[in-house]
């Protein structure tokens, strides 16, 4: 089954692993130039760190996977919407809403035993994300409001609303953020800490990475194998034709947004129940994970399996980048370098696939033409036969 996915992913996007790697290397070179301009003497050491840090120990690789998890979730959120013709730029707000609801339940629903409370918190996070995404969905379906506009608005409304809710319900004045969730409501580690560890400490990696991978598989199956996915994609590719075929296109738009929002909301919930002592700060800043999801999805060509890999790649670069600070690079320069690498890769992949499509289409048209010419004699024979019958 897995081989089938990979095969489709690679064939469908017209890419080979070799060329993807080549693109990433070219992107690294560009990032290196940025570092070089900033601080020439330390740049070689820095780029080596970015390239190797993630693999330098199992604990560091565990950290990569840990930081990859939330952006894989938001990447899937953006990718799912994209596959169904919508641009969900609101993953940030959905992520934040899901996170708040999960943290609130983990803190307050003491009547539920911890394992149940985790499940309830995550389920509620999905629901919260779905409902928050339903707003742009409804506006798009019934009022033809472009989802990008309404998503941007719901991002800000979501952020300020959640800040207000934290302040009034689960605020911890000592930390100036939400209270810490009790350890019993942390997502289980499943022994991952004994693998992804080093002499000093273990990585906070937990079961949520499996949930992310499972979500990707589920997304693939829904989109590719079910009548529901057939409808959603049909609406995304051609809303008018879907309506003509008797598909309820408004319902499809709303469902697409809700599923997309549920993925982001679940990502938010898992991230704040992950046991690294993470709390929700009350700052007027949109959750970055939501926007990272756009890059992750773009780089993964909006394909669920591609999104897993691109999420890991981006987290890998970010962890490496984080660890060149001791070499004297400003945080801003690091972010620019990483962003240059990511966007260069995404841009090249995009251009390549678009070009690939054009070439494939042209070839197919000419192929038809030649076939048509060659079949001409058999066609006239066939049509006379048809007449006789």
């Amino acid at each position: 089954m897995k081989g089938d996915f990979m095969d489709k992913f690679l064939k469908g996007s017209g890419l080979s692993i070799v060329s993807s790697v080549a693109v990433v290397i070219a992107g690294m070179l560009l990032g290196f130039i940025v570092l070089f301009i900033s601080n020439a003497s330390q740049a070689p050491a820095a780029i080596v760190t970015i390239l190797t840090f993630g693999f330098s120990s199992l604990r560091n690789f565990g950290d990569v996977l840990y930081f990859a998890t939330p952006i894989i979730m938001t990447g899937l959120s953006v990718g799912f919407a994209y596959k169904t013709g919508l641009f969900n730029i609101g993953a940030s707000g959905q992520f934040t809403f899901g996170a708040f609801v999960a943290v609130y339940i983990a803190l307050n629903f003491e009547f539920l035993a911890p394992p149940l409370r985790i499940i309830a918190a995550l389920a509620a996070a999905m629901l919260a994300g779905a409902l928050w995404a339903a707003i742009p969905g409804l506006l798009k379906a019934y009022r033809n409001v472009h989802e990008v506009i309404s998503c941007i608005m719901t991002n800000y409304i979501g952020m300020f609303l959640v800040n207000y809710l934290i302040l009034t319900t689960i605020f911890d004045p000592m930390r100036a953020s939400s209270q810490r969730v009790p350890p019993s409501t942390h997502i289980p580690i499943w022994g991952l800490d004994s693998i992804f560890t080093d002499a000093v400490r273990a990585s906070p990696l937990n079961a949520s990475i499996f949930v992310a991978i499972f979500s990707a598989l589920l997304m693939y199956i829904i989109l590719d194998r079910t009548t529901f996915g057939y409808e959603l994609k049909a609406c995304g590719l051609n809303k008018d034709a879907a309506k003509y075929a008797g598909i309820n296109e408004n319902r499809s738009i709303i469902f697409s947004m809700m599923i997309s929002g549920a993925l982001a909301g679940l990502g938010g919930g898992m991230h704040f129940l992950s046991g690294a002592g993470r709390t929700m700060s009350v700052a007027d800043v949109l959750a970055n994970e939501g926007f990272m999801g756009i890059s992750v999805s773009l780089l993964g060509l909006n394909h669920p399996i591609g999104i897993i890999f691109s999420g890991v790649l981006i987290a890998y670069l970010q962890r490496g980048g984080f660890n060149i600070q001791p070499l004297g690079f400003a945080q801003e320069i690091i972010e620019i370098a990483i962003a240059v690498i990511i966007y260069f890769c995404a841009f090249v992949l995009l251009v390549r696939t678009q070009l690939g499509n054009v070439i494939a289409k042209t070839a197919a048209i000419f192929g038809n033409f030649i076939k048509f010419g060659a079949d001409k004699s058999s066609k006239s024979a066939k049509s006379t036969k048809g007449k006789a019958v």
Partner: protein
Amino acid sequence: MHIIEMRNITKKFPGIIANDDITLGLKKGEIHALLGENGAGKSTLMSVLFGLYKAEKGEILKNGEKVNITGPSDATKLGIGMVHQHFKLVHNFTVLENIILGVETTKNGVLQMKDARQKVLELSQKYELEVDLDKEIRYITVGMQQRVEILKMLYRNNEILIFDEPTAVLTPQEIEALIATMRNMAAEGKSILFITHKLDEIKQAADRCSVLRKGKLIGTVDVAATSKEEMSEMMVGRKLSLTLTKKTPQIGETILQVKNLTQKGDSQKNKLTNITFDVKAGEILCIAGIEGNGQTDLVNAITGLTAVDSGTVAISGVNITNASIRNRGTQGMSHIPEDRHKHGLILDYNLAYNTVLQNYYKTPFQKMGFLQKGKIREYANQLVERFDIRASEGSNSIVRAMSGGNQQKIILAREIANSPKLLIAVQPTRGLDVGAIEYIHKQLLAQRDEGKAVLLISLELEEVMNISDRVLVMYEGEIVANVNPQNITFKELGLYMAGAKREAAVA
């Protein structure tokens, strides 16, 4: 002596020879038609002449002298102008601004519109090309946009004019006017190359005709001395029956019943006013009319794409006025839509997926909500076989990469295979070549002979006269005539369509 001569032109694209050793001469003051099916190489040849493509082999001579055309600017210098199939106009510029664009007269960097206006006005009067110089392009009709394109060529004093399928976008009246203009220009000494695949227009307009097939020049003939049948045979490479043999219709019970259908418009005028008619099993009822007289609104109301304001629609006595589109399908309505790319197909789905667009949720195409891809492919393969759909990768082909004729065949196959009681076909042959048109007409007749009710909406008078059993004419949202095509002439039908005549009984 030829004003333009193309000698041994060969143009290759990867995997295909678009023009194979073509030699063509254009005489001064003649209208020279270039006939061929879609993909025969007409447009490529003209693009070579206009400098958009560079030919691998061959040469171009003007007045006997060899010329080198490397781009449209060279062509313009040589007096060659082209009206493209898709117009090249700036939509938020006025007509006048578009005409002078690129050849503006200026004085100290300031535009001198007065002289330009004078010259354009003279040209438009001389050639009877009526345009509104100060209107922006986006607010004028397609027909007027085309006149702007023609004026652009005249303004540049072009003497060799290329028209790429100019009639495809025009109404019958506009076509007539265009042909008159072309004759007028030829009489003034302009030389015209006219790309088309419509034989009637060649008969009316052209002096000579060169026929291309699969990239090769089949021959150049004198139009007056060659019959339409002969030309079509040259074009397609086999004999075509231009007139269809029809059995006498076996009229059955009423299938579709439309009663007092009225749709309000944006302004005070109704889009549809009090439309009442029915279609019976075993007949082809055709709705004729000039584009934009309410045909699209009528189809949208019947098929459920838009809601009905007042009146009723029923199939076999079942009221479906407010039924969902899916419900109409299960009641036996099939619909070949006007715009196959907008409504008929999901271009980025493969052929197989497009064949189950209305049936994907039924067994055997799904089981427990999961698509049964094997079954879908099997079904698509049957349709490919039965309807002779050609695609490079069979049922797995992405529809976007297929030719227009084969795309239309997918829709036709899908809608017929649903074995409907009522088949609604809206301009089913629009933009298709002769072979595909013949095929679709045969299929529509076959449906009628099987006892299906067929509602055909067509703008092509010939199609209306050839295959329908009964004709309704629409004018400004009303039905103005209900006639038998055997008892009416083209001319009379044209009068109804133009609103100049109205049947008393219908009103």
